[in-house]
């Protein structure tokens, strides 16, 4: 653990609590990213997001979760040395010069689910899954990243904040302000990402928190007590417009290229009731991953822009 083993060559990003540099690990010559946590700016000492990130990445070691290579202190700053991941799924989705196939989508979804399955079986909730946090390695592997909002699975009586997850990927229980929720919030996010991969535009782009409910329920139906007992007891429920859930035909029309099992998987990830929503195991064992086409070999997916 020493700073002298790493170089910071190029600043590639700056967030609220960190600056990211590209550099090299001198001992191996490998490319790395250094996330420098701006500790000195926080009056409460080490920032919570930094603590969460360090805490959870230390425990997770999986091909589809970003690898924390090292941590070191330098000039009163905390530096996380992470594996170098040149791009992310958001960039790929947005770049209209990149063409990808249903087999590519299946491969990405499979890798995402595997990573999140590993996070969940370590009793950790990610709470901020979105295309931008699914990074892609030089050999095409999806890596779940950014654990700044993660937390341990709550005990039965623990109260949580529902103000988590980037709006478009926020599960209905969070939109309702639930004080208790669990793994299902992450599965919902993956469901929305799945839809976005097929549509190549954001599936549920709410403009604000109120509008997010409107957009979500218009697309997927307003939950009722029948599918989700006591959902109507959430504050704010009675102000909602009641939309019927989409028929299979409507879904087919919206997701033209999707197979029946793809739709089934998506529907079950986007189940309103978090108790009946599929968990990552059920998703991974779904028919979608067994039927043709087989998922693309990650290394063979071409995500370089075809512009030139």
């Amino acid at each position, binding site marked *: 653990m020493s700073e002298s083993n790493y170089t910071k060559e190029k600043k590639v990003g700056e967030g609220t609590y960190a600056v990211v540099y590209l550099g090299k690990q001198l001992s191996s010559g490998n490319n790395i990213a250094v996330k420098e946590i701006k*500790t000195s700016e926080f*009056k*409460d*000492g*080490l920032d*919570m997001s930094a*603590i*969460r990130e*360090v*805490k*959870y990445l*230390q*425990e997770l*070691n999986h091909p589809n979760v970003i690898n924390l290579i090292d*941590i070191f*202190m330098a000039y*009163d700053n*905390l530096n996380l040395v992470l594996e170098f991941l040149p791009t992310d799924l958001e960039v790929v989705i947005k770049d209209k010069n990149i063409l990808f196939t249903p087999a590519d989508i299946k491969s990405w979804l499979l890798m995402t689910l595997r990573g999140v399955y590993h996070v969940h*079986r*370590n009793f950790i909730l990610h709470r901020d899954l979105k295309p931008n946090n699914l990074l892609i390695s030089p050999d095409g592997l999806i890596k779940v990243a950014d654990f700044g909002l993660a*937390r*341990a699975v709550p*005990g039965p009586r623990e109260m949580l904040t529902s103000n988590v997850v980037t709006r478009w990927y926020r599960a209905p229980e969070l939109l309702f302000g639930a004080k208790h929720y669990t793994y299902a919030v992450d599965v919902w996010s993956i469901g929305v990402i799945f839809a976005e991969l097929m549509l190549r535009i954001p599936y549920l782009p709410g403009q604000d928190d109120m509008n997010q409910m409107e957009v979500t329920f218009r697309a997927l139906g307003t939950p009722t007590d029948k599918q989700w007992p006591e959902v109507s007891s959430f504050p704010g429920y009675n102000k909602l417009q009641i939309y019927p859930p989409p028929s299979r035909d409507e879904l087919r029309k919206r997701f033209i290229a999707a197979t029946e099992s793809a739709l089934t998987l998506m529907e079950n990830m986007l189940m309103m009731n978090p108790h009946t929503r599929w968990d990552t*195991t059920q998703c991974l064992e779904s028919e979608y991953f067994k039927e043709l086409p087989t998922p693309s070999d990650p290394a063979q997916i071409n995500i370089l822009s075809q512009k030139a």
Partner: protein
Amino acid sequence: MSREISQTPNIDNSNSPSTVTENEDPKKPPNYKRISDDDLYRHSSQYRIWSFTKDNLRERRQQTNQRAIALINEKLGKFIEEKKSTLTEDELQTLRAKASPLSMEEEFQLINFYSKKVQVIAQHLNLPTEVIATSITFFRRFFLDNSVMEFDPKNLVHTTIFLACKSENYFISVDSFAKKAKSNREAILKYEFKLVESLKFSLLNHHPYKPLHGFFLDIQTILYGKVDLKYMGQIYDRCKKKITDALLTDIVYLFTPPQITLAIILMEDEQLISRYLEMKFGKDITNNTEDEKKEENKDVNETKPGKTEDKTKTPNDIELDKLLVVIGQCVDVLEKSESVTTEDAKRVAAKNYYCQNPSILLQKLKRKLEASGDDNGSESPSKKPKVEQ
């Protein structure tokens, strides 16, 4: 670094889904094996970095102690060397007698004393159980690699509690924390970096409270209808308290959380735990008397028809004999740990203070001499190192 915990048996948290998975599904490949919770635990930083054998642990403390002793002796040597010409024989003697570094055992006493202090203060601040547990754990881990002669433990009490709050998602701003703890911002944050670094950036703790919850649910399932729920509630609370006490000992470095939990339930009610373990992992219930055996079978059959087989079968080859041996060892360690008296702690703290501040020892000697010279024996009340109350 050795990662060996002696004879770790496969204890899974019984309410986890992965234990149910067997090789029965014909669609699975032949060597299909789902990773067990035990495998996951072996990947945790608590196991990788913070689990030791007794000898490892002792060695590590010895190293820390030796390093600090060398440093202190060097400083003392320099101090004496510099003042040699002016020191009286009396003063030299006092220095030799009283300004000597702490032994490993003395350090350990002081750490134990202050760990308790961490618990008391954290409880006083009304923090949740897990936060208190993490505070204690952080504090004790810090002093595995840092000597009390390098860092005064009382300077880390608030720092560890504050970091534990953040790490356990129980955020309090440093200002309101300082106000509640009657400390100040600078003092709390001064060693935060050093602390995180000494913790090897490993912040996730598996405390035994979750296994306790799991075992209690499972005991009530396995011994359904045979345990009084109110009684179970009472011993649950007592066990929870005992777990926090156990965190003040070395037990957490030597055994896994479920092992500690079983040992603690055993200390609370030996009969309950042996009945449970027999039912769950025993090959047959030979230890029970004929009557009990009959009754048990009858009860189980009545309440859970058809399920008896599944529930009593061992899901992953846990050998009961081995398990009992480990739990026995764990009980042994728990029973042997004793608390440190305030007198002992004060004595060690004073010694710690003088070995780092020999000049103060000399001043004290001077005052004493002056006082006895004046012959009215009034000792000056100032400058005595205090163990914080």
